[in-house]
């Protein structure tokens, strides 16, 4: 009876959008131990960033992640702007917030859809992705591409949003909010959803701090930590409070993300109403000097940190990226033991793993 079975979950698995392998040690149907294995999508982007010109890196770092690409570019540009002491025009700061929140919105809808898919609620999955498509359409209209929008540049943004498009964003998010009002209650109160998520993969407050978890996973454990509260960009002018849930299970993580979609819609409205007019790009000269900078931003998955070191030439000495999933994967080793094997997909998905980010 004491024999253990090891089941390799992944790297190819129907619930995983990306290749992550978890070696699950089972005793009957109960998980007793978990060993994550990473390294399937390493592309050497950090090294490539040292070989490139620092202006080209804006496009390179966007390709680290296929969901929150714009926020990666913002974080990199913030670090370079810090080194080169570039002051951004206020309109550029607001435009970065608008595109950043649109990315958060579509990322959370993607995740809510995938969560529904992970326990077989296909029609809910379709509903979320239908709404997500409208957000992607706005991104394409305003920037020219759907996900990797390449709208960020060192010193500001590359494109302006016209008043006509701003009005359209407001109409589309109104429509999205109306549709979300119809399906978010399904995530929050449907018995089928609750039976698969409540009390599953619990991570307590103390453990969450000890493991260094970030983002919605941390906020679902009752800690109000959000990198946007540091007030980078235009966030300091937009009054908001992080969404916090107490129970720390998969249900709490779903609720945090569901409420954050509304929060993003609110932030978008505020940002569009307060949007100042003026320039969108500050011109700069020269190369980043011999200095280093760290920048922190909030991705849909949590806190993203960039460390950029210049050496006075057009190439950079070092670009180091710490992604939110890197901090959240260790949480799986505490969430999974004691759970049923059938719950593993939902638990793994609940941290919203982004493996391409983590491995770069």
């Amino acid at each position, binding site marked *: 009876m004491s024999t253990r079975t090891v089941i390799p979950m992944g790297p190819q698995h129907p619930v995983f959008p990306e290749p992550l392998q978890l070696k699950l040690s089972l005793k009957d149907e109960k998980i007793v131990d978990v060993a994550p294995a990473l390294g399937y999508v390493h592309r050497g982007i950090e090294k490539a960033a040292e070989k490139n010109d620092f202006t080209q890196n804006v496009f390179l770092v966007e390709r680290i992640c296929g969901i929150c690409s714009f926020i990666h570019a913002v974080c990199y540009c913030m670090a370079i702007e810090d080194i080169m002491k570039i002051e951004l025009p206020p309109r550029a700061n607001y435009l970065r917030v608008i595109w950043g929140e649109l990315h958060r919105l579509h990322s959370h809808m993607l995740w809510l859809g995938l969560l529904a898919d992970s326990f077989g609620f296909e029609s*809910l999955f379709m509903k979320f992705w239908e709404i997500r498509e409208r957000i992607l359409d706005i991104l394409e209209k305003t920037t*020219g591409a759907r996900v*990797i929008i390449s709208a960020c540049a060192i010193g500001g943004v590359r494109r302006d949003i016209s008043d006509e498009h701003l009005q359209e964003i407001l109409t589309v998010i109104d429509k999205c909010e109306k549709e979300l009002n119809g399906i978010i209650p399904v995530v929050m109160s449907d018995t089928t959803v609750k039976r698969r998520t409540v009390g599953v993969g619990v991570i307590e407050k103390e453990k969450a701090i000890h493991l260094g978890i970030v983002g919605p996973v941390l906020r679902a454990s009752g800690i109000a930590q959000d990198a946007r509260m540091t007030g980078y960009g235009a966030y300091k002018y937009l009054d908001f409070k992080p969404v916090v849930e107490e129970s720390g299970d998969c249900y709490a993580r779903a609720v945090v993300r569901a409420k954050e979609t509304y929060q993003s819609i609110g932030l978008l409205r505020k940002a569009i109403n307060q949007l100042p007019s003026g320039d969108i790009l500050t011109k700069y000269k020269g190369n980043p000097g011999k200095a280093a900078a760290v920048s922190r931003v909030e991705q849909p998955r949590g806190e993203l940190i960039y460390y950029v070191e210049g050496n006075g030439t057009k190439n950079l000495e070092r670009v180091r990226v710490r992604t939110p999933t890197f901090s959240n994967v260790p949480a799986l080793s505490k969430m999974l033991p004691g759970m049923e094997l059938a719950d593993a997909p939902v638990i793994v998905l609940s941290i919203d793993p982004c493996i391409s980010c983590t491995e770069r």
Partner: protein
Amino acid sequence: MANFLGAVIENLFKKPATRPYPFTKREPFKDARGLIKFDGDKCVYCGACSKKCPAAAIRVERAEKALYFEPFKCVTCGFCVEVCPKDAINQEFEYRKPDYSKSIEKYGPSAVPAPAKTEAPPSQA
């Protein structure tokens, strides 16, 4: 299940959200970033685009007055369009069509018909 009942009933009478693709095509949006096209006559072969291209998809031969562009390497970021001092680069709204081989387009002054596909890829710089 009662929460989702409204959506279920609505779905019964709603048109599909998807398009019947080969018959109904989605028009590209205005200002979408698609294919890159060069103007061989306007170009002064300064090489600014090839220096800035993040995907190294452009190679400029100054002496030869030729520009080699690899559309399959291009990530359609539009950085070359921004840095071109002579506005010789245009970005179209259409996406790149699939192809059987990774072609290389050669652009030059209008004596050479542009874009001409070369068979053998020129050596990489």
